[in-house]
């Protein structure tokens, strides 16, 4: 048995891991503790790893280890969705930092070192690391691995590590009471184990299809993509591609290249993330653009759409920036806002409050780091406030902030739509980013959010027995009310919220499944019950959540 893995094997192990996670996606989704129809862990982790797998698969057969590592690292960082996706991307990033320096042969000791770096990188990405999660499983992998050295047999090593990882995963309910109560293991940890299992199966010589389809991401792209409408270009081809940079690409070269692109057409943009540069341009001469781009490295994720041909537009084309981002910082405004929202009514409220870019998503689909980076590139402002409005998007927003160089990005950790609204309202143009973050954080603490939706499965949580299709009223700290009727459950939830924090204003955002008249009926009941309160009724138009309630 060989005691080292070569580049080809490593690449295939990664692809096998990605494929196996994809195959187990629904099983992972089922492990979610909250029985809400949300963007789930399995989906998020799969989209994250597939973004990396596509970049790896697009490399030439004989690509070296460094290129594979670059593709894995940048593909997952940019494609990261949801907290588990961000942690997964940080694991790959840390791992690749060690592996990319090797000469094409990976030994057990190299792997141990790379796992160490992976765990370090992932823990760093989380503000308050929690045990009993994917982090614990990753740490378990490293700890078991570190018992081995190059004298050991690779297959034995892999098997031992996996057995241990499974053990750690099985013990997660002992570390996190919510898991125990719901009777599940941690979903993120389970996702990581599926990646490892895929690699193990391939290493054992199992026949596996490693083909990575290009379409995996197309459906979510539509939901999670940045809305932008702009002037049509007079040039024929809308090009977008990514350069895997083989040499240093400094600011001067970046600007020169951008100028070159602008001389060839319009809507030109360059976004450098680690070792990759994502480009877009509308031009009449794609050949010249490619030729110049090839001088910086290999190309991947290539898309060319003939804009004048009409009809058949590839999904990628919609993603291209509609307007060339103003590349002259002196023309930028002081402050801009990006928020993640769903529902026409809620998006209209954000627009009304002065938000520049709204990334559609949130409850149903968590946008990727790349979606957020793209929105950032479209806002010509020196300081951009990003409001995720969902706790599962905050880490992707932080990751986007860390990957942005030319603008100050302030991630305001809003966990709900009402928190995001409260934060924007409290914004003061004269204050610095840091001061505004403090003021916005305080404003968010003054608003209580309640969300009413239905259960997608039977479970037990927060001491409540929940059956599939039950109506649930979810507060900031957990499930407050469970019932069969939407109105009743909503009012019960509000009663609990009002008893916890006396409010002056109850805002009701009703969803797409609720009629105006039904919402008015609810508002009237609340007005009778809480005479001292202002009641505000807004058509939110959000899917899945019948009502979003805020009390402040």
């Amino acid at each position, binding site marked *: 048995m060989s005691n080292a893995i070569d580049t080809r094997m490593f690449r295939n192990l990664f692809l096998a891991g990605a494929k196996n996670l994809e195959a187990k996606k629904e099983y992972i989704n089922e492990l979610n503790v909250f029985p809400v129809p949300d963007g789930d862990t399995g989906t998020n982790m799969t989209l994250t790893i597939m973004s990396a797998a596509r970049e790896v698969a697009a490399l030439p057969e004989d690509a070296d280890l460094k290129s594979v590592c670059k593709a894995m690292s940048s593909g997952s960082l940019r494609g990261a969705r949801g907290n588990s996706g961000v942690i997964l991307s940080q694991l790959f990033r840390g791992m690749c930092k060690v592996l990319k320096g090797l000469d094409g042969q990976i030994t057990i000791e190299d792997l141990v070192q790379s796992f160490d770096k992976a765990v370090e990188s992932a823990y760093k990405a989380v503000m308050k690391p929690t045990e009993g999660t994917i982090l614990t499983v990753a740490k378990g992998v490293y700890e078991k691995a570190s018992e081995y050295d190059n004298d050991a047999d690779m297959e034995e090593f892999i098997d031992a590590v996996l057995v241990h990882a499974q053990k750690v995963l099985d013990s997660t309910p002992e570390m996190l009471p919510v898991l125990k109560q719901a009777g599940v293991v941690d979903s993120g940890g389970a996702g990581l184990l599926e990646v490892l299992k895929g690699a193990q199966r391939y290493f054992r010589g199992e026949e596996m299809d490693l083909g990575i389809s290009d379409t995996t991401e197309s459906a979510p792209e539509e939901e999670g993509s940045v809305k932008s409408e702009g002037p049509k270009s007079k040039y024929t081809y809308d090009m977008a591609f990514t350069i895997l940079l083989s040499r240093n690409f400094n600011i001067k070269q970046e600007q020169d290249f951008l100028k070159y692109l602008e001389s060839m057409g319009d809507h030109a943009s360059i976004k450098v993330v680690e070792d990759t540069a994502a480009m877009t341009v509308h031009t009449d001469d794609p050949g010249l653009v490619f030729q110049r781009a090839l001088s910086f490295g290999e190309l991947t994720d290539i898309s060319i759409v003939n804009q004048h041909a009409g009809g058949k537009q590839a999904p990628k084309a919609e993603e291209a920036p509609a307007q060339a981002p103003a590349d002259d910082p002196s023309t930028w405004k002081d402050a801009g806002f990006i928020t993640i929202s769903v529902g026409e009514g809620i998006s*209209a*409220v954000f627009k*009304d*409050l*002065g938000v520049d870019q709204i990334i559609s998503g949130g409850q149903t689909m968590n946008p990727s780091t790349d979606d957020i980076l793209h929105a950032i590139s479209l806002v010509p402002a020196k300081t951009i406030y990003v409001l995720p409005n969902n706790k599962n998007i905050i880490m992707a927003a932080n990751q986007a902030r860390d990957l942005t160089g030319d603008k100050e990005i302030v991630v305001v950790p809003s966990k709900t739509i009402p928190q995001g*609204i*409260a934060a924007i*309202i*409290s914004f*003061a*143009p004269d204050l610095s980013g840091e001061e505004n973050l403090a003021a916005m954080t305080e*404003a968010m603490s*003054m*608003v209580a959010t309640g969300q009413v939706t239905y259960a997608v499965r039977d479970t037990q949580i927060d001491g409540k027995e929940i059956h599939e299709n039950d109506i649930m009223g979810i507060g900031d700290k957990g499930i407050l009310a469970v019932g069969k009727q939407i109105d009743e459950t909503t009012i019960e939830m509000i009663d609990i919220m009002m008893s916890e924090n006396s*409010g*002056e*204003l109850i*805002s009701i955002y009703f969803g797409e499944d609720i009629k105006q008249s039904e919402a008015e009926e609810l508002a009237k009941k609340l007005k009778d019950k809480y005479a001292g309160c*202002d009641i*505000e009724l*807004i058509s939110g138009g959000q899917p899945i959540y019948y009502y979003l309630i805020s009390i*402040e």
Partner: protein
Amino acid sequence: MSKVAIMTDSNSGITQAEAKQLGITVLPMPFNVGGSDYFEDINLSQEQFYRFLEEDVTVKTSQPSPSDVTAAFDRLLEEYDEVVHIPMSSGLSGSCQTAYMLAREPRFQDRVFVVDNQRISVTQRQSVLDAMKLADNGKSGKEIRDFLFEDKFNSSIYIMLDTLHYLKKGGRITPAAAAIGSLLKIKPVLTIQGEKLDAFSKARTPQQGKKIMKDAILKDIDIRFGGLEGACDRMHIQFAYTGDRDKIDEFAEMVMADLPGFEPPVIQPLSLSVACHIGPGALAVACTKKI
């Protein structure tokens, strides 16, 4: 020592009755309501004015007519050697500019001094009181004008509006204030620092708005006006409101709780020319530096 008369307009919130008591002259501000002319505190009371606003009748502000202004100057100069006139902020009305031009007529030169110190309502009122004190101390009209002018930015006002309706309707809205959203219930907090009424912050509820104003005025006293320690020796605090008086006392109590040693603050209705743009239900707090 020359005898100096003090004159202001009804934006100062000083009523005709109070003016008589203080021995000063208050020009009533004219309003046009549904085609008829009214004068503040002459034939237009606070109650009447708010009834007009509620009925959504268009209330237009205008300036005192030049002949009324010069007539007042002439009348005062019969009895006094000099006149110091303190009209409402030039940032909010053209009446200051007009008065300034009229005062340049030869018969008023070096006798009538118009102070453009950009104050309004309770802070304008304080300027009037300051001017009276300076006149009593034997200062000349020119000295009083120069002093008040130097002192003009030593004041600060925060106002929370109950609604954006009147601000938008009046069209007197700065771009910053116009950016305040209109789909949600939002209570804008405005500020007057010298010049214009400008957006300061926003609140969703009255409690939030009151806290924003309180924090802002305490911060001003602390940072701009020499610290909170011993502030009662250096500062005046005033409160003003539009519409019903019922909410202002509670707000005043809330602010004064953190300002020990102060005399009971002046609380008065905001002048109608401001009320006309912001509507009823507004609360305001101001501070001015003592002279």
